[in-house]
C-alpha cells in the first residue's frame, strides 16, 4: 500500500467535495452566524450527510454503516475543514462511533441507526479544565439503585446543548489524574438533573458547560467496563484527534489556497505582490509545512486502520504537526492579505478562528508534543 489515496478514496473525495462546496460553504456558516441560529449547525445538512451515507462511514457494514476507516473519515473532514462547515460529524460520526464500537449490543443497536440516519447528534463531555486533560476527571459516578448517579461539571462540550446523547467520562474509582477508575457513560440529553449553558465560541460554533446534579443513569449506560473506561476513551480520542487533524489540514489548505490566489492578483508598487521574493519564500515554506502535515496525517490514518501499534504515537505527531502547519497557514493568510484580511467581510479571518478552536480540541500542539516526548521516555 502506498502513502497516497486509493482510487476508491479519490472517488469519495470527488463526491464529498462538490457536495460540501454546494451545501456547506462559508456562506452557509455566515448565514447561521448572522441569523443568530441557536443550534450551531444545520439539522437539514446533517440529514443530507446521512442521505449520502457519510454518517455511517465508520459504523460496521453489519450494523448499517459503510464500514470504512480513518482515511475515508479524514477525507470527509478535510472537506468540512476547507469549507468551514459547521457540523457534528467529528464528534458524532467519528469520535462517538469509535467509542460505541466498544459498547454493548443494546447501546450500539440503539444509537448506530440513529447516527447513520442523521436523527441523532452525540456530544463529548470529557473536559473539566481549560486545557485538554482526559485523565483529569473529577465528575463523580456513584453506585445508585440499578445504576449510577453522576455529579459534577463538564465544559467545552461542543454541540452539548443540542445533542441527543452525551458521552461522559466519570470517576468511579482512583484519583483525579489517574487513568484507572474512569468510566464512560452514554447519557441521554434529557436526563433529569442535567443542565446545559450554551455559549457561542470564537469560530461561531456553540459549546456548552454542563452541570450534572445527581443525574441517574442505568447500569447499561456504561460504555465498555466500569473503572476501565480509559481504553474506550483512548480509542475515542485517537479517532477524534486524528479527525481534528484532518479537519485542520482542510482549514490550513483552504486558507493557503485562498492566500496564494490573492498573491497572484493583488498589485502594489506596480507589481503583482506574488512577484516579491520575500513573499514567495514564505509561501513556499508554508507549502512545505502543509505538505508535511498532510503526510503525517495520512500516515497515522493508515496506521490506525491497520491496527499498527505505533498508531497512538503517530496520531499525536499528526495532531501536533497539523496544528502547527495550519496555524502558520492562517497567520500567514491574514498577514499576506493585508488590511482586507482584518475585515469580517473577507473569509480569511474565519479560517483563523476555526483553526484556533480546532487546535484546542482533543489537545493542542503543545499537549501532543509533550505526549510524544513522554512516550519516547523523556
Amino acid at each position: 500500500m502506498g502513502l497516497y489515496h486509493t482510487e476508491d478514496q479519490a472517488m469519495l473525495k470527488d463526491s464529498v467535495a462538490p457536495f460540501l462546496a454546494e451545501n456547506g460553504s462559508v456562506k452557509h456558516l455566515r448565514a447561521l452566524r448572522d441569523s443568530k441560529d441557536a443550534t450551531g449547525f444545520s439539522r437539514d445538512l446533517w440529514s443530507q450527510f446521512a442521505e449520502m451515507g457519510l454518517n455511517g462511514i465508520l459504523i460496521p457494514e453489519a450494523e448499517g454503516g459503510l464500514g470504512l476507516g480513518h482515511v475515508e473519515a479524514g477525507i470527509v473532514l478535510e472537506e468540512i475543514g476547507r469549507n468551514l462547515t459547521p457540523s457534528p460529524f467529528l464528534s458524532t460520526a467519528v469520535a462517538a462511533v469509535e467509542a460505541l464500537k466498544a459498547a454493548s449490543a443494546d447501546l450500539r443497536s440503539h444509537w448506530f441507526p440513529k447516527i447513520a440516519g442523521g436523527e441523532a447528534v452525540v456530544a463529548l463531555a470529557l473536559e473539566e479544565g481549560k486545557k485538554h486533560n482526559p485523565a483529569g476527571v473529577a465528575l463523580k459516578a456513584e453506585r445508585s439503585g440499578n445504576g449510577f448517579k453522576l455529579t459534577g461539571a463538564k465544559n467545552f462540550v461542543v454541540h452539548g446543548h443540542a445533542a441527543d446523547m452525551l458521552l461522559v467520562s466519570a470517576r468511579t474509582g482512583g484519583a483525579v489524574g489517574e487513568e484507572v477508575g474512569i468510566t464512560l457513560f452514554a447519557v441521554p440529553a434529557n436526563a433529569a438533573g442535567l443542565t446545559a449553558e450554551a455559549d457561542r465560541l470564537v469560530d461561531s460554533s456553540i459549546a456548552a458547560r454542563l452541570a450534572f446534579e445527581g443525574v441517574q443513569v442505568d447500569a447499561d449506560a456504561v460504555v465498555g467496563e466500569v473503572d476501565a473506561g480509559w481504553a474506550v476513551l483512548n480509542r475515542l480520542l485517537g479517532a477524534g484527534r486524528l479527525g481534528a487533524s484532518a479537519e485542520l489540514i482542510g482549514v490550513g489548505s483552504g486558507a493557503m489556497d485562498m492566500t496564494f490566489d490573492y498573491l497572484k492578483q493583488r498589485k502594489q508598487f506596480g507589481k503583482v505582490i506574488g512577484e516579491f521574493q520575500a513573499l514567495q519564500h514564505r509561501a513556499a515554506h508554508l507549502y512545505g509545512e502543509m505538505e508535511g502535515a498532510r503526510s503525517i496525517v495520512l500516515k497515522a490514518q493508515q496506521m490506525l486502520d491497520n491496527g499498527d501499534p505505533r498508531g497512538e504515537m503517530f496520531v499525536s505527531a499528526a495532531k501536533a504537526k497539523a496544528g502547527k502547519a495550519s496555524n502558520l497557514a492562517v497567520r500567514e493568510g491574514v498577514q499576506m492579505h493585508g488590511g482586507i484580511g482584518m475585515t469580517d467581510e473577507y473569509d480569511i479571518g474565519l479560517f483563523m478562528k476555526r483553526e484556533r478552536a480546532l487546535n484546542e480540541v482533543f489537545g493542542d500542539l503543545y499537549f501532543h508534543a509533550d505526549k510524544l516526548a513522554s512516550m519516547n521516555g523523556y
Partner: protein
Amino acid sequence: MTDLEAFRKETRAWLEANCPPEMRQPVKGDEDVCWGGRKWVFSSPAQKQWLEAMAAKGWTVPDWPVAYGGGGLTAEQTKILRQEMASLGCRSPLNSFGIWMLGPALLKFGSEEQKLHYLPQIARGEIRWCQGYSEPGSGSDLVSLQTYGEDKGDHWVVNGQKIWTSYADKADWIFCLVRTNKEDKYRGISFLLFDMTTPGVSTKPILLISGASPFCETFFDNVVVPKHQIVGELNRGWDVAKYLLGHEREMISGMGGDGGMASLGSFYADVLADNPVLRAEMAMFEVENLAYRAHSERFMDEWKTGRAHPAYSNLMKYVGTELNKKRHELVMAAGGSDALEWESARTNGGARPRAWLRTKANSIEGGTSEVMLNVVSKRILDMPGA
C-alpha cells in the same frame, strides 16, 4: 512461491554465501567505506573480495542493464536486494559519484559507445569520478560559469577553475561543465569528461570548518579534451546538468539526512529531565522528524508511481536539509560541554562537533535552501515573475 519470493530466497542465500562477515559489521570510520578507483587502497582483503563479488554479479548497480555492467534487475528486485542487504547488515560494496550521478546522466544522454566504455568501469569501481560544477564566481548562479573550452578542431583546450569539487584529489576522471559558447548563457555550456592526469589539471584541498577536506579547488591550465569526450550535444550541457541536479536532490531527499524514525530525545533523557526548555525543543523536533519521515515516504511512493510534481524533489531537499541541521543543533545542545571536545579518543575525535559543522553545508550544496524555495514557489506554486 511467486517469482519475487523465489528471487528473495536466492538473493539471501547468495548474500549469506558471498558477503564476508567483516563486511556485515557496521561502518565505523571513513576507511570502511569503499570508493574504488585507481588510487584506492583496500582497507582489508574482505573489502576487496566483497566489491569483486558484487561487481561480478552486476549488483553494485543492480538496476543498470547487464551490458553496462549492471544486474539487469527490475525495480521490485532491486528493492528486495536492498532489503536483504539491510537485513543481513551488508555494507554497501561501493560508494561512487559515478554510480549516483554520472551513470544516470550517461544512461540518459550518453552515446552507445560511451555507455559501453564508461559504465562498466563505474560498476566495477575501477574509475573514481568527481564533479566539476561550481566556480568561485558561480555558486547558486551556476549558469554564469566561466571555465572555457576553446575549439581546436578535433579537441577543446580548457582553461579555468572549479571549486567544491568533492574528492577531486582522489578522483581519476572528472565530469565537468565547460563554456563552449560565450554568446549564449544557457545554450553555451557543454558536459565534458576528462582524465584528471591530463597535463594542466591540478587540485588543492580546501580545509573546512569541520577540520576535514572533502572538497578541492581544481585548476585547468590548457587542458586538452578530445571531442568524443562530450556527453549530449554541443552547447546543451545545461540540460544534462539540470537532469543531474534533479537526480541529486531526489537522492538527498530520499536519504533525508541522517537519523531515521527513532526518537532522538530518548538518547538524552537524563539531560532533558533537568532542562525543560531544551526538552520542549526536542519534543517539537520529534514532531517534525516523524512528519518528515512520513513526507519522505509519501514523496517516494508518489514519485515511483508518477504522481509527484516533477519539481517536488526541490521541496524535499529544502525540508530535509533544514531538519538535519536542526537535529545536529539539538545533539550539540544535549551533548553540552562533552560535545565541544574536538580531539579526544572518547569522543571519537570530536565526531559530534565535526558532524554538526558538516551539516551546515547540507542547505548549501546541491542548491541552497533559498534557491529551492525559488523553484518551489515558481514551478509548484506558480507564483508570477521571472
